């Protein structure tokens, strides 16, 4: 595959194109989308719009169309995940020690874990570009904004380059445009930096993986918060990968599955979402039409 890779959004971004001649145009479109999302949705930039919104909680606040879309997508994810993927976990993440860009977190820095009541997504209203949420609510869009960025970037790049495009943002993968003849080859693993444990092909939509094996900063400390407790999720699944009609839906489902724990296989199956779940002991469970692993020749 023809592609390019660079650092963005605190992780690795890459773009692949079906037509090699279209790579530069595709990459430019992706970079523009990522820059816009970062300026709007980052929790780690003082000048990001989201930080201004969090600081203004308690009073109605007009937001840009991009942030409105990101918050709307986050609220939809919360509704469709029965509240398991909740954007109001911002304060809980900070208390867990995830209070700065992950690269700046040092193991052992964080204070002891403690439970916190998450306000809940129903506390947030957004209508006609005006956001209202109670004082004390702090939004974190990390669960869905990166996936939204992947979806938006893939669509923008496919339009700009007039070819099939795959965008990978730290393991959140979205494809748009006409896929290569044999589909897009995607590796599946604990860490988006590889190695992959399985290789699959997709032709549309997206694939996302949520893992408690990476982005950790101490025992029991990782970035996936259970909104029911306000603390990092209890260990059950090490990694969950989901294929869906969009990267946002795949990410919503994979994150919800990690939070749901033992209930996840049934929850995913009821939604007919192909998924691969890896328990902490390495046992693999597949759901719906997730393909079986092929052994190397």
């Amino acid at each position: 595959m023809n592609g390019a890779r660079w650092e963005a959004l605190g992780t690795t971004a890459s773009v692949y194109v079906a037509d090699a001649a279209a790579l530069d145009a595709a990459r430019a479109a992706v970079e523009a989308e990522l820059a816009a999302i970062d300026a709007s949705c980052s929790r780690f930039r003082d000048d990001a719009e989201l930080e201004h919104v969090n600081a203004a909680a308690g009073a109605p606040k007009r937001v840009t169309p991009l942030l409105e879309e990101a918050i709307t997508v986050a609220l939809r994810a919360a509704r469709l995940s029965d509240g398991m993927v909740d954007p109001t976990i911002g304060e809980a993440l900070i208390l867990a020690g995830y209070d700065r860009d992950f690269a700046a977190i040092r193991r052992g820095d964080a204070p002891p874990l403690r439970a916190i009541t998450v306000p809940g997504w129903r506390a947030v209203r957004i209508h006609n570009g005006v956001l209202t949420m109670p004082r004390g609510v702090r939004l974190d869009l990390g669960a869905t904004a990166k996936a939204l960025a992947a979806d938006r970037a893939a669509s923008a790049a496919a339009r700009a380059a007039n070819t099939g495009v795959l965008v990978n943002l730290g393991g959140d993968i979205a494809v748009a445009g006409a896929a290569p003849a044999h589909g897009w080859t995607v590796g599946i693993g604990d860490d988006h930096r590889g190695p992959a444990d399985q290789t699959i092909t997709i032709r549309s939509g997206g694939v996302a993986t949520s893992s408690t094996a990476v982005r950790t900063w101490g025992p029991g400390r990782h970035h996936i918060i259970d909104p029911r407790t306000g603390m990092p999720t209890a260990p059950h699944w090490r990694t969950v990968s989901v294929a869906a009609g969009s990267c946002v839906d795949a990410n919503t489902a994979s994150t919800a599955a990690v939070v749901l724990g033992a209930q996840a296989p049934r929850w995913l199956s009821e939604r007919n979402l192909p998924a691969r779940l890896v328990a902490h002991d390495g046992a693999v469970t597949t759901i719906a039409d997730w393909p079986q692993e092929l052994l190397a020749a």
Partner: protein
Amino acid sequence: MGSTQRDRLVQGVRAARWTAGLGAAGLTAAFSVAAAHAFKGHDGRKTTAAPTRATTTTTHKVTVPGPDRVPAIAGGGALQPPQSAPQSAPPQQQQVPQQQQQAPQQQVPQQQAPPVSGGS
């Protein structure tokens, strides 16, 4: 006005008051039943309260309003499965070359390891 006539008037007033009272009670009951059917409440199942916040540095009171209508977006009604299920692919070279990990920006050559969906 004689005492008999006055007694009849008093009884008439009492009867009217009873009738008005019963009518009001009946209307209240009817409206209550109608309202109960119009606005669904709890389903009667027991729920477990979330753990309360431990000692925290902030004491902001969070007032939670009622649920808001989430604007419809594409596929808003449910999480959408993929149009076509993923397929198996033969395992490929998985290791990302060391050169790529060190270079912040560069082109990924052809016949390269595929993009990996994993945690980040």
